[in-house]
Every structure is written in structure tokens, then in C-alpha cells.
């Protein structure tokens, strides 16, 4: 193999003249995490709303929720990002479109919005599955006690549903971190984009991509362990997934 390894490249100054390559990668990591977290907040709130709507006793609302999920699940994320970034400013009134185009960090906001909506459809499916996994009697009991429908969701159904669906939500959160790399196509300088820029400037292809890979793995492990701790704390006692109580002797 004729490839000149140079691991010292990380401490050399990047073409911006100020930061080392390592610093640019860490800055990219910051953008990756910021994008993922902001998009996750959007995905979780929208997804919960749509998931709840899909279990409501109103057929037209259920169908609306279903249409929402189908729309955002059946178009590739990259295409959705292009729609938000290139198409939206053209089809809204000219003044709004101009404002959108001149927004500083437009690619960041676009990435957050498109990742958020894209992931919300998946979160909605999980939330719905979580609510449907509960015994029907829980809803009836809550309503029989005189709770209104919103109260039944808020105090009885959702707290249980969220504890049940924590593991799939964890993988959706990991997905949103990975999917944020797609935003490099609209110019967001997140981790993968920084690695690519470093490769183009320094020609040290494999060092750059190795570093990015290692950073993604570290983030992955950190999130997985953190969420495992949360899952243990939030496990519903008595379910198979919960740690068994200490056996009595």
C-alpha cells in the first residue's frame, strides 16, 4: 500500500490559519451534537403529539396522523432536506423567502427542522405502539374515574407508554445523531463535513475519517450507557424488562 500515514496531521494548523485540524473536528462534533439535540427536541414533541393523535377515538384525527407519518417516512431524508432548504424559500411569499435565504446559519436551522420532522414520524410510531401496548382497561379506568381524555393521556397513558418505549427511543436518538451527517449536503459543517474538509485540504484521507469514526463511536457508547442507566431507573416494576426484585429466602 502506497499511503503515507501521518497521525501528526491533527496538530497541524488547518487552512483557516487559526485552528488545528483536531480543533476543527471538535467544532464539527459540537455542531453535530447541537443539531441532533435541537432536532431531537422537535422530533420528540411533534412525534408524541402525532403518536397520541393516532390513538385518539376520532377516526379523522387518526387518519390525519397516519398521513403525516406516511409523508415523512416515505421520502428520503436527503430529499426532505433539499425541499426545506431549496424549495421552501421559493414557494412561500417572496418577502418570507428572502428572509429565509438571508438567515445566518440557515443550514443549521434547516437541518434541525428537516431532521426533526423526519424523526418525528418514527417517534410517533413508537409512541403509538407504546400506548397500544397498554391494557385497554387503563384508558377506561381513567375515564371512569372522571378524568377528561387529555387528563387520561397526561396522567395515566403517556407516563406508562414512555417508560415502555425508552429503548426504541434510544435507538431513534442514536439515529438522529448519525442522520445529522446528511446535513453536510446543505453546507452544515458538522463532524463528517469537517472530516471531509480535512481530507480535501491535507490529503490525509484515512486519518481524517478514522478520527470522525472514533468520535461517532464514543458518542454512541456514551449515549448508550447513559440511556441504559435511565432505562434501568424508569423500568416499570413487574414487567419482563424490569430487573427482577431480590428473591426472598
Amino acid at each position: 500500500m502506497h499511503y503515507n500515514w501521518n497521525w501528526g496531521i491533527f496538530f497541524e494548523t488547518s487552512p483557516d490559519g487559526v485552528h488545528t485540524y483536531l480543533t476543527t473536528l471538535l467544532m464539527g462534533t459540537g455542531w453535530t451534537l447541537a443539531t441532533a439535540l435541537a432536532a431531537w427536541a422537535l422530533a420528540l414533541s411533534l412525534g408524541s403529539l402525532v403518536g397520541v393523535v393516532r390513538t385518539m377515538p376520532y377516526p379523522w384525527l387518526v387518519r390525519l396522523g397516519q398521513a403525516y407519518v406516511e409523508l415523512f417516512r416515505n421520502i428520503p431524508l436527503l430529499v426532505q432536506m433539499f425541499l426545506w432548504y431549496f424549495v421552501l424559500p421559493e414557494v412561500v411569499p417572496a418577502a418570507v423567502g428572502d428572509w429565509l435565504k438571508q438567515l445566518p446559519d440557515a443550514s443549521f436551522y434547516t437541518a434541525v427542522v428537516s431532521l426533526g420532522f423526519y424523526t418525528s414520524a418514527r417517534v410517533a410510531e413508537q409512541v403509538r405502539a407504546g400506548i397500544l401496548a397498554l391494557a385497554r382497561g387503563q384508558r377506561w379506568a381513567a375515564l371512569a374515574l372522571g378524568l377528561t381524555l387529555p387528563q387520561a393521556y397526561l396522567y395515566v397513558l403517556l407516563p406508562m407508554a414512555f417508560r415502555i418505549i425508552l429503548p426504541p427511543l434510544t435507538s431513534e436518538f442514536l439515529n438522529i445523531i448519525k442522520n445529522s451527517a446528511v446535513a453536510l449536503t446543505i453546507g452544515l459543517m458538522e463532524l463528517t463535513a469537517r472530516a471531509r474538509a480535512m481530507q480535501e485540504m491535507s490529503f490525509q484521507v484515512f486519518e481524517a475519517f478514522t478520527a470522525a469514526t472514533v468520535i461517532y463511536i464514543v458518542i454512541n457508547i456514551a449515549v448508550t450507557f447513559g440511556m441504559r442507566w435511565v432505562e434501568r431507573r424508569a423500568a416499570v416494576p413487574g414487567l419482563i424488562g424490569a430487573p427482577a426484585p431480590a428473591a426472598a429466602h
Partner: protein
Amino acid sequence: MFANFDFEVILRSLPYLFYDGMTFTLTLTALATLGGIVLGTLLALMRLSGLPPLSLPAAGYVNLMRSVPLVLMIFWFYFLVPYIGQWVTGAARPIQVGAFVSSLVTFTLFEAAYFCEIMRAGIQSIPRGQVAAAQALGMNYVQTMGYIVLPQAFRNMLPVLLTQTIILFQDTSLVYVLSITDFLGAASKVAQRDGRLVEMYLFAALVYFIISFFASLLVRRLQSRVAIIR
């Protein structure tokens, strides 16, 4: 808002979009699915073998692939495949491979990790008694897997495998980052040449939507038909 929406540009570019672009997308999807399922099944068998020299590398591979973004893997393999080709063939310099081979290798190796997890779940869903029964009949490992376990695992997991294929179909749009003319790449090239981003991207989204939507409808119908009644 759609006053100057130009349908003409879509009509004009239809042959290019579908003949050049969609052919690439569908071929890549089909071949990567096939390769991914074969490799993924082998990985699943390795993970379940109970032999650490086999199960640990397989688990490491799957976890590695599943923790990095596909975009990063596309870049990795784009630069790595020429070196792998050189290593395999023993050539003097890195082998120049086309965009198609590079993306086929990438998607096969990447999706194999996901297919592995599906097949692992499928194999684990088969009652242990069947393996014992096959061994009692005198079958060896290959016969047990080939005649008893894998056919049932495939049948149980067929809907999930197909759903993953739809995801793979959508994921192939990411070859855009290598400026490859897949369906989205073709749409994007026309969009930029003619300055018709709105029309082309909306049309691309519509086509992806229709294909994925009806494919998942079919999968749902298939699901009720292939389910083994117990």
C-alpha cells in the same frame, strides 16, 4: 406561488431521470439487498455460533457499522475500495473502480450489519427444540441451518427484510455526495442546469414517495399472507 411552475422541464428530463437515474438506483438497491442479506446471514450465523473467534469479530463489525453515519461510510469506502482492490489483486497501484462498484461495495457492507440483526432475530425466533430434533435425526450443522432453521427464519423475517430494503432504496439517494447520477443525482443535475430546483426536487420527492408508499403497502399485505399460523 406556483404561477411559474414549469412542468415542461420534468417532461423533457423524464428519459434521463428514469433511464439513467432510476436504473442506477434500482440496480444498486437490488444488488446491495442481495449481497447484504447473504453477508448479513453469514454474520448472524457467526454471532450465534457461540465460538468467540467468530462471534466477537462479527459483533464488532456490526456494532461499528451501526454506530457511524452512512454518509461517512460512503466516503470511507470511496477512498478505501481502490486500496482493497489493489490488495486483493496484488496490483502495483490502487485500482480505479467506478462509482457503481464503489457504492455497491459500500451499501452491501453497510446494510449487511442491519440485515445481520434482522436474521439474528429471525434465527432466535425458531424454537430450540427444532435444532435438537434435527440433530437427533443425524443432521449436521449445515443441514440443520440450511433445511430447518434458515428457511423458517427467512419466512418469519421476510416483511422486516423487505422493509429494510425500502429503507435501503431511500438511503441510496445518499450517493449524491459522490456526485453520482442516481435518481436524485439526475434530478439535481437537471435542477441546477436549468435553474428549476423547485420542480425537480418536488418531482423527485413525489417519485420516492410513490414507490416507497406502495412498496410498504405491498409488504403489509404480504405480511398477513406469509405469516406462519401457529
